[in-house]
Every structure is written in structure tokens, then in C-alpha cells.
């Protein structure tokens, strides 16, 4: 971290298009996506429906489909495009600065699923 609320993720070259990664250094973790069109987005990693990691989901255009029950979230806004999730995830500001992905964290409270304190099952 450089300044509070800002995360230097990695060089853009380390995250190929169509890929995502989870940043566990922040709590709750965030997911960073590099779309096929070359855009970079960051949202909260934990699905709001149940305990699943969105960085492990299916990236299509500007949306990610949750790997557990296929809710889809708009990467630009975090809004739900398709249920079962009832509420959106937080969207953070992601930009590329000097070839590096930098995320400015949202100041909204996270919307974690019921019963989840931090991060998903199975890791």
C-alpha cells in the first residue's frame, strides 16, 4: 500500500487479458480483472450471495459470473445483472499508473454474505 485506501496491485503485464486475481492483503479481499478489451476493473472479491470468490468466476465482457451459483455482477458498478445475489458488490477505482495497476478502495461498507467474516471457503 502506498497511501491509505490505495493498493498497488501488480504490473499490468503480469495480469493477462481475460484473467483475474484476488488481492488478499486488503480486508475483505478484492478482485482485479483485466478484460478482453484491455480494461482493468476492481470489485470486492466475495460474492454477496454466499461464500465464493469472484476472481475465480467467469469473466465475460464487463461482467463476472460467480463460480458458485452464477450471479453476475457488472464490473463497472458492482451492480447485480442476474440473481440469485440480491445486492451488488462494491466497485473500486482501478487504473494503470506507469504500467502498474493501482486500486483506490471504495469508502462504502462492504456487503459480505451472511455468516462470512472474511474471504471464501476452500483456500
Amino acid at each position, binding site marked *: 500500500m502506498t497511501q491509505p485506501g490505495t493498493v498497488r496491485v501488480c504490473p499490468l503485464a503480469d495480469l493477462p487479458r481475460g484473467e483475474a486475481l484476488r488481492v488478499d492483503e486488503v480486508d475483505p479481499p478484492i478482485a482485479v480483472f483485466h478484460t478482453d478489451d484491455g480494461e482493468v476493473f476492481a470489485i470486492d472479491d466475495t460474492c454477496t450471495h454466499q461464500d465464493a470468490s469472484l476472481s*475465480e468466476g*467467469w469473466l465475460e465482457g464487463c461482467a463476472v459470473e460467480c*463460480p*458458485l451459483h*452464477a450471479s453476475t455482477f457488472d464490473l463497472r458498478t458492482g451492480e447485480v445483472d442476474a440473481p*440469485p445475489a*440480491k445486492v451488488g458488490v462494491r466497485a473500486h477505482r482501478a487504473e494503470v499508473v506507469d504500467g502498474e495497476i493501482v486500486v483506490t478502495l471504495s469508502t462504502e461498507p462492504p456487503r459480505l454474505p451472511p*455468516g462470512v467474516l472474511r474471504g471464501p*471457503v*476452500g483456500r
Partner: protein
Amino acid sequence: MSVPPAPPRSVLVVGAGLAGHATAQALRRQGYDGRVTVLGDETERPYDRTPLTKEFLAGRVGTDDLRLEADGEDLDVDWHLGVHAVALDPARRVVSTGDGREWTADAVVLAAGARARRLTGPAGLHTVRTVADSAALRGELVPGARLVVIGAGWVGAEVASTAAGLGLDVTVLEAAATPLAGPLGEEMGTVVAGLHARHGVTLRCGVPVAGVQGTDRVTGVELADGTVVPADVVVAGIGAAPAVDWLVGSGLDLSAGVVCSAVGATDAPGVYAVGDCSAWFDPVLGRPLRVEHWTDARERPAVLARLLLEGRADPPPRPPYFWSDQYGVRVQFAGRRHGDETVTVEAGDPADASVLAVYRRHGEPVAVLGMNQTKLFTRLRRSLATPQPVPAVP
């Protein structure tokens, strides 16, 4: 050119569970503005059963967290809860309920789900299908108590895992030689069932249960070879049967659950079925297949709603899928097994409870199993979802 039939003016859904709620939701999402009535025999608003062996049983989430409806959701549905359907006359599309009332609509959707098979016996003997079942069991899961689980299927395994996490001394009894051989095949069934021993739970396979012992309260479970496994609490996880007893005599084909076309229509015009009670024709297997999984019960109503509103629909685009969480390991499976597949572990290591296994038939991947391999699993699952070569059928 054929003219599509007019959409029904009213839809009556029997069963207010996952599939019933999803049917109402799908109709409204697809723009239906006719009358929708849902009958359900449980008194609760529609709720999710899957946490009943997981987070809810562990006490990490409460009853409100199970609700399927979003806060403020209003689907403009007439919900009639605590109402039990006792008969269907398909020709007139009339459903009779236990309170003596009759209900009719242009389209009747059967979404009655499944009922757990239960054993009868003294206090301390449980089964988990409803929120009341899970709450009752939770009250008895005290640290140090001896829990015996009959059946090493998904429900049994999740109860064992949750109870072990709460500090109980757990034994799982399985009549078959290999647990989960039905859904996963012997090789992978053994790998997944291996999680029990890794977490200090005893698994005994190959000996059927002869009976539950105890008069006022359970004291143990007797096996067919005469052994008695002492128990303070017993859970029977011995499967579920489609809730179709009330449809006997209706003339519907109930040979595999409510038998339907590939898009949910029964042989009776205007009568449809979806969710755990139904067996939609599976275009790949070439026979009706009853799928008892959450995702299929939730997603197929969108197919059915399209059929109701447009007169035609394509079969579900994705193969059956389920997940299970046990001992902190996420198990996921998608696809269809014929039973003669070759299975190869393509990533991970069974010794680390991490596996990605692909099932192939004639060289083609037909199913995939993941244990803590969500990312790779998701990719492979997608590659299975090839369009099906069958025409749309009503």
C-alpha cells in the same frame, strides 16, 4: 407458419420452495402481467435449504438469512402458505387442497420438490429437509456428544462435517461399499469420502443398518452384522423421494418423478413441472432425468416461463450442476455420467483434498469434478456447456 398459442391468463404454482419462487420470479422478469398464485404447504416464506446442513446448522446464519425473496421484493403474487395440495385434475387443471378449496388456472406448474426419507424411532433421531428439522437437530449438537449419521451421501456428509466442527464425536455409516459412487463413480467417491477420515470422523462402509436402538431416546444404531454403534444423536441422510404422492391417480406419468419434455411440459396440456419433483427429458442421456440440485431448480423455471409465454423454449443450456461444502472443502460437479467414463485427475492432488477430475466418454469430456479447484472447474464446466443438437420442443 404456426401462430404461437396465447400466453396463459393465469398461472397456478404448487410448491413455494426454490423452484416455485423462481417460477414466479422468472414469469415477472420475462414481462408476464397475468395472475400468479403460489400454494405451499410450509408456513414459511420461500427459503433456501442448502444452508440447513451447512451455515444454518453450524449456527452461523439465522432464519432470516435463508429467505429467497429480496428485501422489498414484490412479485405481485398471491401466496397461499400452509395450504396442502391433495389432488390434481389435469383435464380441468384443478388443484384441490386439504382445506376443501379448489384452485384453477390456465397453466398449472408443479413445483412440489422432494420429501426426505425418514426413519421412525425414538427422540434424538433426525432428518434434515426443512428449517424446523435443522433447528431441532442444531439444538442437540452439543460438543462431546456422539453423533451417528446413517448414509454418506451429500446431506449426511455435510451434517457430519458441521457436527465435527462443533466438537461432536461423529461416525458415518454407509451401506454401499463406496460412498458417493452413484453421483461420482467409485474412484472419485472414495476421494471425496476420504475427507471424513482426514477430519477425525469414522466412516464405516459396506454394512447396512438393521435398526435404531433406544426407547425414550436413541442409544445406538445396530448394523446388520450385529455390531452396535453407540449414539446420543442419530441423523438419517438416506435420500429423498419426489413429492408426488398427491398426484397418484391424476393420470400423469410419475415413473421418475413428474415426467416432462425437455422444457418442462407434461403430457397433459397446460400442466408443467419443475424442480426436484420433476424429471425433464434429458436430450443427452435420451431419457427423463430427475435432477435434485439447487441450480437446476433455480434456473429451469426461466426455460419454463419462456415456454409458457412464447409457446416454445430451448432446453436448459447447461448440464446439471451441484456443489457441496464439507470440512472447508468446496466440492463441485457438473455434467452427466453414463457410468462407463474414464476419469483422470488433471490438477491438484487427492492427498491435499484438491482435485480437478475430468470424466471422458469416447475421448470427449462429459463431466467434471472439482475439490477446491473453483477456477479451473469453472472453465471446464463452460466447455461442457455445448449447444444441444435437439430441436426446441413444446
